[in-house]
């Protein structure tokens, strides 16, 4: 393998790799604004300038391919002076509104200013200001903060594959706008906030909710569709604040769609059922867990045949627990968009799938029958398991003779159910999903279960005595 030397450290590279990537592998992160691994290279921010021995001029590390034996210096006085100069030019017009800006704390401009910039500003003229135009429901723009890295323009072209953002005018007056000031069309608009190195494009959903340094993160899997995008859940004090994509080259690369990004609000919805609820009488009654498991046992004892309709966002672990608890029962899977995983197909060029559940393939591998063959009238007792975002068909419980709901239910969905045992949503439990490629992906729990909700495995083990006697 050929080598280059970055600041005295020898690093191997594959032919064609750029200096910035190879240096990052040697834990030497060269500052950058316009460069992003997932986007094309423009080398226009000039922040990643490095010195190569034997070359007169500084070169951009993001666009220069490595050659064998190349000696790269990132800490010489020339490089330092150049980087500090670039930083000073960017800060000349950047407003000092970090207390207001949502990006503060994870802002490249802030970080690079601390690491490479000057301590004070020499610019005492009026700063350039713009008037902002609304960019649709997902993204809030603040053009004054923009440093013109054009990542957003390339993101729309290459990831969203809709040419809708452009740089208007030029020089000092450059404005990054959508064409004709139209709102964004792309279904991946939220990613603009991720690629923007400053606080120029931020999501409206997360706006002013929390400062980023309070957030704790957990690695998770998006439960929005069968793609199974890898995500990071940012949470604090038991509340989820935002979801962000996590790099996985085999599944979602660096991206995720808006549908998944904003698909966590149901977890903390005020209408979510948070305690075991008895609906057998006309009035709704909240129970404690021992009363609830007694009630469930009663229902299970009287039933001779049991059918389980499981929404396809149950984890493999929950599937095993269900199979063990109801050995004689029949199992059906339910997903939105498709009936069987073979009907699943991509609905756009990048990530989104027709199957709007994360684990339909896992359920099918476990021997679950498709929803089309499910008839609630065939069973004495139906158990509806709704383990996450997938909503079971409205009113199906009314067709069943008797029914228990396990999992995540909302108050407006309770018609026809006899008993509801609240369990966890995807971000409150750990488990494994099988995505559309057949890839098994494990994830950890991000937050504690809301209210009296318990993991499904715990609920089932409390019921197991009653369940084994049935049938």
């Amino acid at each position, binding site marked *: 393998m050929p080598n280059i030397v970055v600041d005295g450290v020898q690093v191997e590279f594959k032919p064609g790799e750029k200096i910035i990537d190879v240096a990052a592998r040697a834990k030497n992160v060269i500052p950058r604004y316009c460069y992003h691994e997932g986007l094309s290279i423009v080398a226009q921010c000039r922040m990643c300038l490095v010195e190569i021995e034997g070359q007169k001029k500084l070169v951009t590390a993001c666009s220069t391919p490595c050659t064998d034996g190349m000696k790269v210096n990132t800490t010489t006085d020339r490089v330092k002076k150049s980087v500090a100069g670039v930083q000073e030019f960017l800060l000349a017009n950047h407003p000092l509104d*970090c*207390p207001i800006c949502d990006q503060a704390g994870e802002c490249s401009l802030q970080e690079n200013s601390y690491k490479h910039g000057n301590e004070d500003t020499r610019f005492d003229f009026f700063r350039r200001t713009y008037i902002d135009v609304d960019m649709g429901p997902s993204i809030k723009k603040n053009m004054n903060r923009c440093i013109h890295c054009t990542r957003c323009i390339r993101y729309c072209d290459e990831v969203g594959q809709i040419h809708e953002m452009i740089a208007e005018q030029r020089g000092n007056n450059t404005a990054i706008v959508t064409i004709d000031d139209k709102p964004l069309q792309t279904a991946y608009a939220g990613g603009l906030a991720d690629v923007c190195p400053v606080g120029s494009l931020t999501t409206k959903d997360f*706006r*002013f909710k929390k400062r980023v340094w309070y957030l704790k993160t957990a690695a998770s899997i998006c439960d929005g569709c069968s793609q199974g995008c890898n995500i990071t859940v940012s949470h604090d004090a038991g509340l989820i604040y935002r979801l962000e994509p996590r790099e996985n080259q085999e599944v979602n690369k660096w991206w995720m769609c808006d549908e998944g990004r904003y698909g966590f609000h149901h977890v903390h919805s005020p209408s979510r059922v948070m305690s075991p609820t008895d609906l057998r009488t006309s009035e709704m009654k909240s129970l404690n867990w021992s009363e609830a498991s007694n009630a469930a046992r009663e229902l299970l004892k009287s039933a001779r045949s049991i059918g389980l309709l499981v929404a396809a966002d149950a984890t493999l672990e929950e599937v095993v627990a269900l199979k063990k608890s109801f050995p004689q029962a029949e199992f059906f899977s339910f997903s939105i968009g498709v009936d069987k995983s073979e009907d699943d197909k991509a609905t756009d060029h990048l990530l989104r799938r027709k199957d709007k559940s994360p684990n339909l393939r896992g359920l099918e591998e476990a021997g679950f029958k498709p929803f089309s063959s499910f008839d609630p009238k065939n069973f004495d007792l139906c158990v509806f398991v709704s383990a996450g975002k997938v909503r079971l068909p409205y009113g199906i419980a009314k067709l069943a003779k008797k029914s228990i709901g396990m999992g995540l239910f909302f108050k407006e969905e309770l018609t026809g159910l006899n008993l509801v045992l609240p369990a966890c949503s995807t971000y409150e439990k750990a488990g494994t999903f099988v995505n559309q490629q057949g890839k098994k992906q494990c994830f950890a729990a991000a937050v504690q279960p809301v209210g009296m909700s318990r993991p499904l495995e715990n609920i089932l083990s409390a019921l197991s005595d009653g369940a084994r006697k049935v049938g």
Partner: protein
Amino acid sequence: MLIKKEQGFLQRFYLVEVAIGTWITMKNWFFGKNITIQYPEERRTYSNRYRGQHFIKAVNGVENCTACMLCPTVCPADCIHIEAGEREDKEKYPVKFEIDILRCCFCGFCEEACPKDAIKLSNIYEMADYERRVYDKDFLLIQRSKK
């Protein structure tokens, strides 16, 4: 080991020592300066840097605070609670700004961290109350310092 101090005749006589002691007391009684003051009619003056009750500075009726959350971040007693919002005349402002004064340890870090000079500690030290109070935004916005 106990160190025994040698005492002279007059000290052992005792009565002379009592007389001397009484003289010192009487001297302070008749000619000494009063240490106590007639509070609350009389009050001491404190340094301008005294860290007393909090207030939020307002300019032309608009609070300086932009809800940047630096004061709750730096607060060692975890007694400041802020919720941010947006309104017409101000991009970001505190919808809720509460100080749990019973938890506060008056370290003044919030004042030091504030980039907008919004939260300040005044010279007011009389904070006794009949109930356990949480200072809300309206209370804090009343200008309460000596100015």
